[in-house]
């Protein structure tokens, strides 16, 4: 299934470089929804201010994506340019099967629109990578 695209990419986060400014989170929701809202962002940061442990969560673009397999509407496909697993907003029926299937909890759900959403690697030009002032996010080719 993963072999059908020309090349495959994913985002790697160097967690030790993250300064916790949330610019990646903001840019993601801004370009996908026009709103600055961490809840609608495809990349998440969980910060413990006191231990200094920051955890970034972003889709790993699985080789065999459980979300794609489980979708009853055929709304989840592979982007042939990047290998990213992407959700078609038109086809999504809001059943949340994919949300439950994702082992990493990174298939997200917009309750207002009743649609699933996830990281689509911005079609090959991931904005979080560009906006991060710490160069903590890397757009990496999966060999």
């Amino acid at each position, binding site marked *: 299934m993963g072999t059908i695209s020309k090349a495959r990419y994913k985002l790697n986060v160097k967690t030790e*470089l993250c300064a916790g400014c*949330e*610019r990646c989170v903001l840019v993601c929701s801004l370009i996908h929804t*026009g709103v600055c809202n961490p809840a609608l962002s495809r990349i998440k940061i969980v910060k413990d201010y006191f231990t200094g442990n*920051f955890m970034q969560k972003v889709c790993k673009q699985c080789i065999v994506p459980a979300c794609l397999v489980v979708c009853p509407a055929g709304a989840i496909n592979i982007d042939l340019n990047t290998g990213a697993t992407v959700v078609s907003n038109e086809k999504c029926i809001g059943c949340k099967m994919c949300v439950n299937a994702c082992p990493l909890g990174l298939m997200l759900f917009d309750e207002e629109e009743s649609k699933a959403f996830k990281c689509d690697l911005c079609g090959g030009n991931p904005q979080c990578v560009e*906006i991060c002032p*710490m160069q903590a996010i890397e757009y990496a080719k999966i060999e």
Partner: protein
Amino acid sequence: MPYGWVGKLLQVDLTTERMTTEDTMKYAERFIGGWGIAAKIFFDTFEHKIKGFDVENPLIFMTGPLTGTIAPGSGRTMVCGVSPHTHPQEVFAYSSFGGDWGAYLKYAGFDGIIIKGKANRPVYLYIDNGEVEIRNAETIWDWDTFSTQQALAKLHGKEVKTVCVGPAGVNLVRYAIILTDTGSAAGQGGFGAVMGSKNLKAITVKGTGGVRVADPTKLLEVTKYISRLIYRPEKPDGVGAGHDGRLSLVGFENWSNAYRIRGRGCHACPANCKGYFKPPGLPGGDASCIQFSPYGTILKKKGYMEQEDSDYQMEKGNLMWEANILAQMLGLNCYELFGQIIWLMTCYSLGILSEKDTGIPAPEEIYIHPIRKIVCGTVTDHEFIDKWLRSIAYRRGFGNKLAEGVARVAEALGKDFWNIYAMFYHAHGMLAHWINSVVDNLLWALDNRDPISSSHDYGLFALGNQVAVRFAYSTTGYIPSTEDAVAEATKAQSYVYAPQIAAAVSNQRALKNALPLCDWLYPIITSPYTSDGLGDMKAPAKLFSATTGIDLSEEILEKIYGARIVNLFRAIQVMEGRTREKDTVYLNKFEEPMYDVEMFGSLPLTPPLDRKSFERIKDKYYELRGWDIKTGWPTRETLEKFDLKDIADKLEKIGLLP
């Protein structure tokens, strides 16, 4: 619903437990946000002079249209109200903090919170997306700031953001801070004690909404452009970006490099000037320059900053960290502590105070300034730090006096103590801070508090740099563009264009505090990444227009909106009894050279001000503002010019128009 603003202000009366909301736009159309809206709310509620701990003192938390967006350096929240810290009179002042809290307050649906009254028991506010609850805080009432935030995160979920006060706030220490995370505090002004006086321990917010942006593509484009002007991608360790600060390293390179775990930034920051530090055996936390400076002084011996002795530095660095983290946890303002230790140790060295009087042990070593004979460095130990800071926060023994702030304790002890105080405190009960130019002294004289926290720009980036001065003040129309004028305005001790530059800086500052934007990033006067070395003075307007969809030029935002807020603030000062005579710094600044402790005594002293010239530049400043020269009060004509007829009417009713 508007773009940028989320549209609602929350009003909480802790006495009656009544909660109401108000339309933000009612205020935003004229005053934008932050300091502007807070000042208008304060002006409207003002009936008579009040003090910081009075029940009717409104405590105002205010964000602006840019908070919560990706606009670089927008992660700021203003805190306003009558300050218990200012001296001799408790007056309306402002403070601010960074971090994430303000953004999440907006995600929860509020642009600001106005807290009135006093709860009849210890409480905290819990805001969950528009739902507000006043909850019991008896169990956590005297907990430190870190434990308080962790307890509230355990209870309400790790995604919540909390501002809170520590033991210093609940014990009404006049310079208690309001803290969020481990290193973002509203320090100067003592608003932590105002929270304490209202029996309010913390405000916890959970926000899953968002901030709408008028033109997302444009905002992203401007954000990337500004980020390129100010951050340094070749230095991915994240410290000291933008302003070449490596600010969190001041004097302790070896120690900092060993224990800095990561760079840290406030919400939406491209610079990330703070660091998270974790030395072994001590709590970890964020720090920037101010958290370290008091202890830089404590630990400083002559030549110490240059010292390469790494073992010594590592040992003393731990001590410095211990003092910083304890102050943050107790909720004490490091900048006031910075002045306090110098004052206290000078009193020790002159033999007018001793351990017998204070219960605080004398330090091992002190370093006395060769000219001024005041202490500018000491080497202390664990016992000193522990006794000193805890006695203040819990108001034990002499700490009970120190908790009133150096101005009040020195005044109470008598003339000798006051004279030592006045050597390095500058005005309004606050420690000197960038006082080496006439412009900065004029700004000090006109304000209600230390003005520099939100106007570092002239002293740091323009002074002494003709290209920068021309760019920031001449091309923007504040001073003439001739060679002579620019050369004059570049000199620290020149009076010629000081009023014009003070007007420019205060307009730009009012706008910066209203949007609000970070003081270390804006205005962007210089940039290491452009061919001419200059930044972009129009950056705030570009962000404002893209975010709100309201197309206003930088000139209008600064000279109409900024100046309007300056006039509103002046009207509040007038109602609080401000007169021309009170627009001054301490009188000794006209008689003897000035001493800026932030420089650790390493720079030449600033020469005294010339009284006549200073009065002359006040005349000129009032004239530029359209204020009456005799009283320093705004005239009706000026207020109406800035669309402030309502302000003029209220002033006239109480007889305060010139």
